[in-house]
């Protein structure tokens, strides 16, 4: 189905809206210095911190988001819709609002109190918490929709054969959810890598501790635009690669 012909010019405009900013960014990259800019100490420190924290955050979304997906799938009635909306809210929340909310929960004057909040403030852990907060919805959505697409027949059979619920989960359901978990993890990783507003508001910005690649770009964009453009290009490349990976056809895998 290709739709009526008048869709084409609108589609072209839509494509331009996405392509032009990318072209603008690429036009600003100083290719001769690209390597030295990306491998400068500050850039490497920021990229390294981003990679490490994003990997940890992705693992956290697996450990916490998968069970949440199961619970949501098992729920019935209006409560399910409400809980789903709350759990998915960070997906559409303005980043600064997410950061403030995290501050009011995990900050020194937050709900968890001075002792616990004080030990989180301005640490790398705060960065991971912020990233997990914004990335987890991707995992929850992936798991819940994959579960909804399953009939539950295989699980029922395994149950009648005497498998415990844990055994059914680890031997039947989770392997079948593999592609969904992979998609969720890739998207969660990408979202964690791009996290900016909540980190800035909640975790702060210190080289090697809390200053991830997006924060480094934000800091140097005025004083060293060439470095900002170079680092941005790296993140754009990662983003495009990750999305291509997450949405590649998965025929036969499920």
């Amino acid at each position: 189905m290709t739709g009526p012909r008048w869709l084409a010019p609108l589609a072209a405009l839509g494509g331009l809206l996405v392509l032009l900013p990318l072209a603008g960014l690429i036009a600003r990259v100083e290719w001769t210095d690209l390597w030295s800019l990306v491998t400068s100490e500050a850039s490497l420190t920021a990229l390294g911190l981003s990679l490490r924290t994003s990997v940890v955050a992705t693992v956290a979304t697996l450990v916490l988001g998968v069970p949440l997906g199961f619970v949501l799938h098992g729920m019935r009635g209006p409560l399910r819709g409400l809980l789903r909306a709350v759990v998915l809210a960070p997906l559409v929340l303005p980043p600064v609002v997410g950061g403030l909310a995290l501050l009011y929960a995990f900050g020194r004057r937050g709900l968890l109190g001075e002792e616990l909040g004080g030990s989180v403030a301005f640490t790398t852990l705060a960065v991971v918490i912020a990233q997990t907060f914004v990335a987890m919805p991707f995992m929850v959505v992936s798991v819940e929709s994959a579960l909804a697409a399953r009939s539950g027949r295989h699980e029922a059979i395994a149950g009648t054969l005497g498998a415990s619920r844990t055994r059914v989960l680890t031997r039947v359901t989770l392997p079948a959810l593999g592609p969904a978990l992979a998609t969720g993890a890739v998207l969660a990783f990408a979202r964690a890598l791009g996290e900016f507003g909540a980190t800035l508001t909640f975790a702060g910005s210190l080289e090697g501790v809390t200053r991830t690649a997006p924060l480094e770009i934000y800091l140097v964009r005025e004083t060293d635009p060439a470095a900002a453009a170079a680092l941005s290009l790296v993140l754009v490349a990662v983003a495009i690669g990750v999305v291509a990976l997450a949405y590649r056809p998965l025929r036969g895998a499920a």
Partner: protein
Amino acid sequence: MRRVAAGSLAVAAAVAAVSVTACSGGSGGEPAASLAPGSEDTTLWVLAAASLTDVLDEVATGFEAEHPGVDVVGNYAGSTDLAAQLLEGAPADVFVSADEATMDKVASLIEGAPTVVATNTLTIVVPEGNPAGVTGLADLADDALVTVVCAPQVPCGAATAAVAEDAGVALSPASEEQNVTDVLGKVSAGQADAGIVYVTDVARATGVEAVPIAGADEAVNRYPAAVLSGAAQPALAEEFVDYLGGPEAQALLAAAGFGAP
């Protein structure tokens, strides 16, 4: 006095262009007077450092009173942010920067020499009640104290580094923020025990108090104002810069905590 966010500048300019066309065209049959109130005003676009936000609104109100038909539109952001926008071609009549280094960056875009219209000094800022009992700059070298400052790449951070060096204090910040607003936010939220910002920032903020830095006068930030060479209203822009140095504006700036030029 109107105020716009950085991003809406271009939109506002486009709207202004459309309303000018509407006024001069005269083919629409509608008399110009039926347009929105103020559509016949001359608009003066002022880009100014975020620290001037409230006080410059007051100054603009006084200027508008002396110049009937003139509408001053203030656009406030970090000076380096504004300089970057100007270098990317943002249209404006007047630029007021929080330091001379930032004004130097746009030297190719300004008309004549900039005029210093105000000064500002740094202070320690602590949450209300000073829970950590900070008494001076030397306390901020203590690792146990959670200190937040501006990153050395931005004007307030450069000034902070200069003051600390003068005092022989090695700061150990938990975070180096992009601007004073972020420093203030961390302190007023109680997330940090102390921060370093401008005297006028504390005057504008709530939930915080100042602990003076001995010798802060040694590192004074000067605020230069300049007419931009691309100004649509160069004469009026010139008058506005003069007005900033005049007694009415200076009284308002002094009341907001700024020092005399």
